C-alpha cells in the first residue's frame, strides 16, 4: 500500500481548547456547589454541568482527536476540512444555547422553549455534519485498520444520542406536548446517557487508543478489534431495543441489563488486550501518557464491574451517580487528559520542528512538556475523582465539594502545562531562531506556503 501521508488537522487544537474550557467550566460549577450529592441529577442546573462535560469536554475532545486520527487510521485525507470549523462553531454556539436554556428552565422563564429549540437544532445539525464527514472517511478506509470499525460504532451512537437529545430538548421546553412522546422521553434518559457515554465516547476512545497505545509502547498491534466490534454492536442493538420498548418496562429492564453485560464483556476483552500490549511492549520505561492512562483503565474496570451488579440489584441513585462519576472522570477524562499530555506536544513538535529536522538540532519531543510536574497534577486529579465518587456514595456534600475543588485545581494546572507545551515555553530559546515559526496557539497553520516549509 502506498500511503500519501497525513497532514496536521487544522482545527484539532481549537477543538481541544474548547473541550478543556468546558471541562474547567463544569468543574468550577461543581466546586461552586452547582451540584452536590443531595441534589437530583435531573435538576436543570445539574444538567448544565452534565452537558458541559459530555458535549463540551468529552464530545469536542473526541471529535478533535478523530479529525487528526481518522486520517491516520485510514491513510486517507479528510474530504472537506471547512466542515471542521463550521462544526466547531456550531457545537460551541449550540452548547452555549443549551446551557442557557437549562438556566432559563431553572429560572422558569418563558424564553426557555425557543432557546432549547434553537439549541437542539444547531447542536443536532453540527454533530450530524461532523459525524457524516468522519463516518464517510472511516467507512472508505475501514479495511486499513480494524480500529476504524470501533470508531464507526462510536459515531453511530453519537448520531442516535444527538437525536435523542434533540427530542428531549424540544419536549422539555414544551414545544412538543404529545403525551406518548413525553412519556417516552421521561423513560429514555438512561438510554440517552448510556449511548453517549458507553456507545459514543467509550468506543471512540477505544478505537483511538487501539492505534496510539501500541505505537507509543512499541508493542504489536492489538488484535481483538473484530471481537470488540461484534460485542459492541450487539450491546448497542440491545440498548436500542431497550430504549424503544418503554411501554413494557420489564422487557426494557431485561434488555438494558443484557446490554450492560455485553458492554462488560467488550470491556473485559479490551482490558485484556491492553494488559498484553503493556506486557509485550519493547519500550521499557513508560512515558507519562502511557503510565498516566493506567489509573483510567483501572477505573474503567472498577466502574463497569460495579455497574452491572448495581443495575441488576436496582441500586440507589447515589450508587449509580458515583459509578457514573468514576466512569466519566476517572476513565474518559483521565484517559483524555493523560493522552493530551502526549498528543498536544506531539502535534506541536511536528508542526514547529518537522520542517527543520535533519537540517539543524531540534528539541526532543519530551522537552516540550514538563512530565514531572504534570504527573503530580494528573495524580492529584485521579485522587480527587476517587474522593469525589466516595463522597457521593456517602452523600457528603462537604466532602464532595472539597474533592471537586481539588479536582478543579489539578485540571487547571494540567491546562497550564498543556498551554506551556503548545506555546513551546519549555524548550531552549536557541532552537527557535529563524526560520523557525511559532505555531499559532489554537490551530495548525497550513504548512504549504508556511515559512518553515522551505527551511532554507
Amino acid at each position: 500500500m502506498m500511503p500519501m501521508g497525513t497532514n496536521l488537522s487544522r482545527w484539532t487544537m481549537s477543538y481541544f481548547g474548547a473541550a478543556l474550557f468546558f471541562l474547567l467550566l463544569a468543574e468550577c460549577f461543581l466546586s461552586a456547589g452547582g451540584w452536590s450529592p443531595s441534589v437530583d441529577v435531573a435538576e436543570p442546573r445539574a444538567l448544565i454541568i452534565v452537558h458541559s462535560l459530555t458535549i463540551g469536554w468529552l464530545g469536542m475532545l473526541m471529535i478533535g482527536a478523530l479529525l487528526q486520527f481518522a486520517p491516520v487510521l485510514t491513510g486517507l485525507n479528510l474530504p472537506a476540512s471547512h466542515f471542521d470549523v463550521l462544526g466547531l462553531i456550531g457545537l460551541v454556539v449550540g452548547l452555549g444555547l443549551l446551557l442557557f436554556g437549562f438556566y432559563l428552565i431553572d429560572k422558569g422563564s418563558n424564553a426557555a422553549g425557543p432557546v432549547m429549540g434553537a439549541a437542539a437544532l444547531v447542536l443536532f445539525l453540527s454533530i450530524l455534519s461532523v459525524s457524516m464527514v468522519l463516518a464517510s472517511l472511516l467507512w472508505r478506509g475501514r479495511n486499513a485498520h480494524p480500529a476504524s470499525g470501533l470508531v464507526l460504532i462510536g459515531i453511530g451512537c453519537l448520531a442516535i444520542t444527538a437525536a435523542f437529545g434533540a427530542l428531549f430538548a424540544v419536549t422539555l421546553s414544551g414545544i412538543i406536548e404529545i403525551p406518548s412522546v413525553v412519556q417516552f422521553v421521561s423513560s429514555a434518559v438512561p438510554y440517552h446517557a448510556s449511548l453517549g457515554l458507553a456507545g459514543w465516547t467509550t468506543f471512540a476512545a477505544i478505537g483511538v487508543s487501539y492505534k496510539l497505545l501500541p505505537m507509543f509502547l512499541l508493542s504489536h498491534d492489538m488484535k481483538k478489534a473484530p471481537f470488540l466490534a461484534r460485542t459492541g454492536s450487539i450491546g448497542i442493538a440491545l440498548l436500542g431495543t431497550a430504549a424503544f420498548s418503554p411501554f413494557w418496562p420489564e422487557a426494557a429492564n431485561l434488555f438494558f441489563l443484557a446490554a450492560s453485560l455485553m458492554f462488560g464483556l467488550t470491556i473485559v476483552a479490551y482490558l485484556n488486550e491492553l494488559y498484553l500490549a503493556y506486557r509485550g511492549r519493547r519500550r521499557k520505561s513508560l512515558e507519562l501518557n502511557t503510565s498516566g492512562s493506567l489509573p483510567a483503565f483501572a477505573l474503567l474496570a472498577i466502574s463497569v464491574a460495579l455497574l452491572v451488579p448495581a443495575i441488576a440489584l436496582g441500586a440507589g441513585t447515589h450508587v449509580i451517580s458515583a459509578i457514573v462519576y468514576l466512569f466519566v472522570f476517572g476513565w474518559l477524562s483521565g484517559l483524555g487528559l493523560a493522552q493530551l499530555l502526549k498528543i498536544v506536544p506531539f502535534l506541536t513538535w511536528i508542526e514547529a520542528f518537522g520542517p527543520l529536522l535533519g537540517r539543524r538540532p531540534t528539541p526532543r519531543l519530551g522537552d516540550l512538556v514538563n512530565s514531572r510536574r504534570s504527573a503530580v497534577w494528573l495524580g492529584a486529579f485521579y485522587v480527587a475523582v476517587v474522593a469525589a465518587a466516595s463522597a457521593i456514595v456517602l452523600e457528603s456534600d462537604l466532602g464532595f465539594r472539597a474533592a471537586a475543588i481539588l479536582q478543579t485545581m489539578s485540571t487547571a494546572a494540567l491546562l497550564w502545562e498543556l498551554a506551556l507545551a503548545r506555546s513551546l515555553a519549555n524548550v531552549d530559546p536557541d532552537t527557535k531562531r529563524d526560520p523557525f515559526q511559532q505555531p499559532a496557539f489554537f490551530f495548525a497553520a497550513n504548512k504549504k506556503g508556511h515559512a518553515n516549509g522551505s527551511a532554507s
Partner: protein
Amino acid sequence: MVQLRELDVRQILRNGGMPFQLIMDTFSSLEPGEGVRLHAIFQPVPLIRQLEQRGFSHVARRLADDDWEIDFVPGDAPNPTDPAAPASEAIWPDPTWNLDLTDLAPPEPMERILSRLETMASGEVLFALLNREPVFLFSELKARGHEWIGDFDGDGKVYRIMIRATPGDAADASN
C-alpha cells in the same frame, strides 16, 4: 501491435496484500509477444527493474496519486516521449544506507531518516525498517521533494520504506 493482458492489483495492495507472486505468475504465463497492463496504486520501482532485466520495457502513467497504469511490453524500447516516467529515472540504485529503526518510538524514526537524507547526495537511496507506518514522515518527504515507496512485510509487523534523495529545494538547502 502488442497484445496487453490486464492485471489489476490495486485492491490487493489497498488491503495490505502482496501481489508480487501473482504478477510474476502472470508474466510467466504470457504468450510470446504478449505484454501486461498493470494497474497499481504506486509505481512499483523494484518490480519494474526486475522485469526490465527479463526484457520488458515499460511505460508508466500516473492517473491519480494512488492510481498508476504501467504497460510492460516485451523487447522493444518504451515510448521515449512519455513525460510521466523517463525510463532512466525509474531505475533506483541499490540503497547506500540501511537503517533498522524498529526499536524506536515515534517521532525518532522520522528524525533519523530526515537527518540521514540531508547528508545524502541526490539520487542516493535509503532503506529503512520501522515498526509502524510513518504517517507524518510522508508529508515531510513530499514537502522536501524526496520519492519513496513503502509497505508492510508479509506478517504486517515491519514497515519497509525505500527513499530516494531527490530534494526539491536542494539549491535552498545547501545555502
